[in-house]
């Protein structure tokens, strides 16, 4: 680690970076981990395993705070969450067990790929559309639910489909979450929406609830190997908490969709930088 031990300036800088990561993550609905790990590794030179461990704890805390609002307004579907959680939690343990022994170049490479995927999917997200979920189909798993959508002022009912496929994707999301310390929402929200035909608001609410539980599995594995560093975790938790509050207020005032191209470019920049790091080649803009 190149981080100066107990240097107050570094601790404050990590807190500020975590706050910025949380603001961006909150506005994009991606969670802070997607930005936190690349920034800690690329700009602070922190060992990726300690960055992933810190991120996992931060994602847990963020989910604990963020879930209450989604639960209150019934955007969270507890049955769907528990069904998919079996897949994501198991995947997270497998991913974390690999992550703690993996060559850092593998972590950089996979993370770079995930960020580039997130950047591209953000650009094309507006092009996609999902037809209204059918609510007259059989529901043998009793996964159907409803919530009041404040935007239209009425109840929205839905019955998730393709539960098997959703669980399959959940395993992959869990593995990514376990390896990289991100929540997995970057994979699960589109999967629930596009594959299972869950309305976006319910997908986000259910995912926010799930990512905390998924990341707990990751965090305990990294804790078991001594990769939870309080000098990273404490400023990151404080920064992410404050940033999340700012981000949620900004989201109400600014239409994040308008900034999607800028955010995509940031994700692309971080993703390509990590790929260069994985290949141990200096990025042209860092040379």
């Amino acid at each position, binding site marked *: 680690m190149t981080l100066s031990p107990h240097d107050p300036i570094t601790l404050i800088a990590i807190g500020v970076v975590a706050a910025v990561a949380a603001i961006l993550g909150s506005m994009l609905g991606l969670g802070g981990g997607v930005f936190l790990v690349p920034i800690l590794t690329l700009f602070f030179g922190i060992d990726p395993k300690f960055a992933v461990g810190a991120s996992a704890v931060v994602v847990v805390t963020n989910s604990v705070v963020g879930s209450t609002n989604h*639960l209150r307004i019934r955007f969270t579907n507890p049955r769907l969450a528990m069904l998919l*959680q079996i897949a994501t*939690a198991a995947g997270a343990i497998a991913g974390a067990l690999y992550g703690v022994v993996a060559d850092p170049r593998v972590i950089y490479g996979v993370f770079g790929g995930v960020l580039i995927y997130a950047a591209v999917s953000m650009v094309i997200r507006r092009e996609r559309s999902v037809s209204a979920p059918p609510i007259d189909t059989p529901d043998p798993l009793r996964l159907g639910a409803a919530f009041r959508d404040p935007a239209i002022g009425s109840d929205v009912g839905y019955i998730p489909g393709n539960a098997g496929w959703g669980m399959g994707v959940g395993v992959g999301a869990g593995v990514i979450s376990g390896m990289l310390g991100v929540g997995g929402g970057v994979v699960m929200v589109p999967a629930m929406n596009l594959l299972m035909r869950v309305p976006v608001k319910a997908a986000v609410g259910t995912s926010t609830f799930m990512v905390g539980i998924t990341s707990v599995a990751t965090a305990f594995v990294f804790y078991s190997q001594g990769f939870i560093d309080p000098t990273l975790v404490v400023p990151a938790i404080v920064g992410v908490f404050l940033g999340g509050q700012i981000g949620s207020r900004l989201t109400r005032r600014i239409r994040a969709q308008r900034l999607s191209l800028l955010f995509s470019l940031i994700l692309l920049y971080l993703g390509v930088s990590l790929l260069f790091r994985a290949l141990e080649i200096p990025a042209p803009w860092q040379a």
Partner: protein
Amino acid sequence: MNHQTADEPGMEHPEVTATGLLAARTERLSPLYDAAIWTFTWGFRLGAALLLLGIVMALVKQEPLGREADPFAEVIGQVRAGHASGVIDLAILWFMFTPVVTVIVVAATFWRLGDRRYALLSLVVLAILGASIALALNR
């Protein structure tokens, strides 16, 4: 509306819409939503209080933070000895255990509401989390 089941309110009213039935089904889970909100809220409040206490103790006693969270067994000893790093490690562990407790609460509430299937699924999730906790205990 072939997804409706006999235990749902509104069965006797044919004019009830499918969305209305789903909304009624969701509202039957109100005790679960309330219990999860309560667990998350107090889990965060107590964890934040512990974290704040640890930070204040570290600042007052000029005690540097550890670079690695201590194993479970040592954390309590550190707290008893009045070390800020022990309190901060306890806060981190508190945050990590909050979702685990929430899964227990969710499983218990599904059971109490008569939804055995999802109570058991929640217990499977708990068992998976238990595997990662067992790894942490064997550190």
